[in-house]
């Protein structure tokens, strides 16, 4: 199917951004090239443009999020769109409205872009079928978080010149992570070698079928890695259900200076945030010279501007 995915027209061919799964390598490059320009814009004193003037962007978050939601909000506003935030967890859902009722209601308001986060895998796809505007998946359950994978790719590309031939170790709670799934797809698409490193209880079944090398020993998994992506471990998963305790998790799977020393000497460290210092990552590494964690946040705004611009310009 590779040939049908090839996109020579240099135009993003999709109405939505629902997942990395739907994208070709050239789709990814189109978005990253545009994001590259937005990085420069974001560093100017005058950041605002009128590209999306008159367009309405609704951030529909069924699951609380500070970082992603504000990143999308800033991105939309810099492009001149009218941005509205809806935290649905606190309103309609509690009154018993279904996901599709909410979609129909919003659709009637004629928005141009819907940015959606939902706690259930597949919910954003379902919603996209019921509305007429462009939909951006801002995270659906443990399925996908495509803008996170794109911003990670942009960050890596700016430091390493590209993604192909790199060895990337994704470490931690892969099983429950949409970030991991989107990154595995994107990195494989762009020709990187992907490893996952986690205790078996935090790996999805048959994970090796996703095109990754699996390691349960972190030192082995980091050996020679160019990029280390740490994942957040939720509090409720470190109290004896899937891992025994914070101290044991940190001992065997927390990124500290010693474990980092097994990676390539110029290895870079990433984390989608928010971090648990002393759980999955040590402060000296999170704040150290190898860390790209703050830069990822900046790239997040640029990538989301590129996505919103691309989808917002498509005539509906």
């Amino acid at each position, binding site marked *: 199917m590779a040939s049908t995915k090839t996109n020579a027209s240099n135009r993003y061919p999709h109405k939505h951004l629902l997942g990395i799964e739907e994208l070709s390598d050239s789709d990814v490059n189109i978005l990253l090239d545009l994001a590259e320009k937005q990085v420069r814009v974001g560093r100017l004193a005058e950041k605002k443009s009128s590209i999306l003037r008159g367009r309405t962007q609704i951030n529909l978050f069924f699951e609380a999020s500070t970082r992603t939601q504000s990143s999308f909000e800033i991105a939309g506003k810099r492009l001149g769109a009218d941005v509205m935030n809806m935290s649905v967890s606190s309103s309609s859902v509690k009154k018993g409205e279904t996901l599709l009722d909410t979609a129909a209601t919003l659709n009637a308001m004629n928005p141009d872009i819907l940015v959606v986060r939902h706690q259930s895998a597949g919910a954003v796809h379902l919603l996209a079928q019921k509305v007429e505007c462009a939909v951006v998946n801002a995270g659906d359950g443990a399925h996908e978080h495509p803008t996170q994978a794109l911003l990670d790719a942009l960050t890596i590309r700016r430091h390493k010149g590209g993604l192909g031939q790199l060895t990337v170790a994704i470490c931690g709670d892969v099983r429950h992570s949409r970030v991991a799934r989107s990154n595995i797809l994107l990195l494989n698409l762009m020709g990187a070698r992907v490893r996952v490193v986690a205790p*078996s*209880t935090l790996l999805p079944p048959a994970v090796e079928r996703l095109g990754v090398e699996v390691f*349960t020993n972190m030192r082995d998994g980091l050996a020679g890695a160019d990029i280390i992506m740490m994942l957040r471990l939720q509090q409720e998963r470190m*109290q*004896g*259900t899937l891992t*025994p305790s914070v101290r*044991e998790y940190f*001992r065997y799977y927390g990124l500290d200076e010693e474990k980092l020393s097994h990676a390539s000497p110029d290895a870079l460290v990433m984390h989608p945030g928010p971090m648990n210092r002393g759980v999955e990552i040590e402060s000296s590494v999170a704040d150290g010279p190898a860390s790209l964690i703050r830069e990822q946040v900046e790239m997040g705004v640029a990538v989301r501007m590129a996505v919103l611009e691309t989808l917002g310009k498509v005539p509906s």
Partner: protein
Amino acid sequence: MTPAGSQANRELPRDTLFYNARVVDPAQDIDMHGGVLVQKGAVAAIEENLTEAPEGTELVDCGGKLVCPGLIDMRVFTGEPGAEHRETLASASRAAAAGGVTTMICMPDTDPVIDDIALVDYFMRRARDTAIVRLKTMAAITRGLRGKEMTEIGLLSAAGAVGFTDGRNTITNSQVMRNAMTYARDFDAVIAHHTEDPDLKGNGVMNEGETSARLGLTGIPIEAETVIVERDLHLADLTSSRYHAAQVSAEKSLDAITRAKNRGVSVTCGISINHLCLNEHDVGGYRTFLKMSPPLRAEADRAAMVQGVSDGLIDIIVSSHDPQDVETKRHPFAEAADGAVGLETLLAAALRLVHSGDCDLKDVLACMTSNPAALLGLETGNLKPGSPADLILVDADAPWAVEERDLRSRSKNTPFEGDRFLGRVLRTMVAGRTIYE
């Protein structure tokens, strides 16, 4: 009484030659007439015509008696910490030495429960300072043995726990069991599980069947064991982990385990010596010392399990030494605690299987030496040159009767009171030191 460990352990190991012996070492598939030379605490030689040794070596003419590796008892409960009036590590180790057990694997069912690295460390220091045989501990699979949250399997292994078990408790939540087995696999840790469904057991106190009906006691069906065994085997298959059914009692359980082994699942099973030597009829006069978990089964099951030892289907034989005091045993049968002591009678009772002609000596000894050593990764349990000289000299034909007052264990709840055995330990050696004679 002097603190047991201190003196014996300070004594230097003495070079010793055991000659004119029947030497049996299952690890090397040896059963021969010959000798074993011990030098500097280790086995130096094991040969057929070994009769000479360097000057200064103690020469022991064994007169054709048995020399074999000291036993490894993989399931021992003590009362330390928390119930020292029943048994301490020191008193248990003296009982072990007299019974030919040179390595005891202690269960974490103590108070506090051994579910934390500080307690493993405490155990190892107490063992080093007070015990005269080798002591290792298993740690709990779940915190407080509550069957809910898994313990720090990685850190506990690193601290010295040789395996993981919830001791007398069965983990009924299959999700908890799956997660623990999955996690344990990453650390190559063995999960040893007591397989008795507490809900199906209910108020049962002995094997369910005609005997329980006649005695008017509530029965425990075989299925209380088989449903957990079958579930665990599926989970072991699913998680590719190392699973050990700590003590099975029914032929149906053994069949299921054998089928799983044949499918390539990494599984082993153990049995207590009580279930190989006794059956439900022995409960006859409501003798509470024969109340145990799992309960003594019907004669057909007992006989099938003996056959299982002979066929090599059962990997481990344990004493399941469980000291209980008057306050827990002097009750009507249904209200008495489970458990029986067994360190001192383990070998003699096991020799019954040999004297009866049901099992080969080497096969029985394998279940108490090389097999547990292999399962837990111990360097003992064999007489290979270079291995620590943990060995015993046994008169396999010496008659004796079990008398409560002669037991070294602090608790006297033996199910073999008054029974006659053939086979006594003459000498027990740990790392070349004689600790019992």
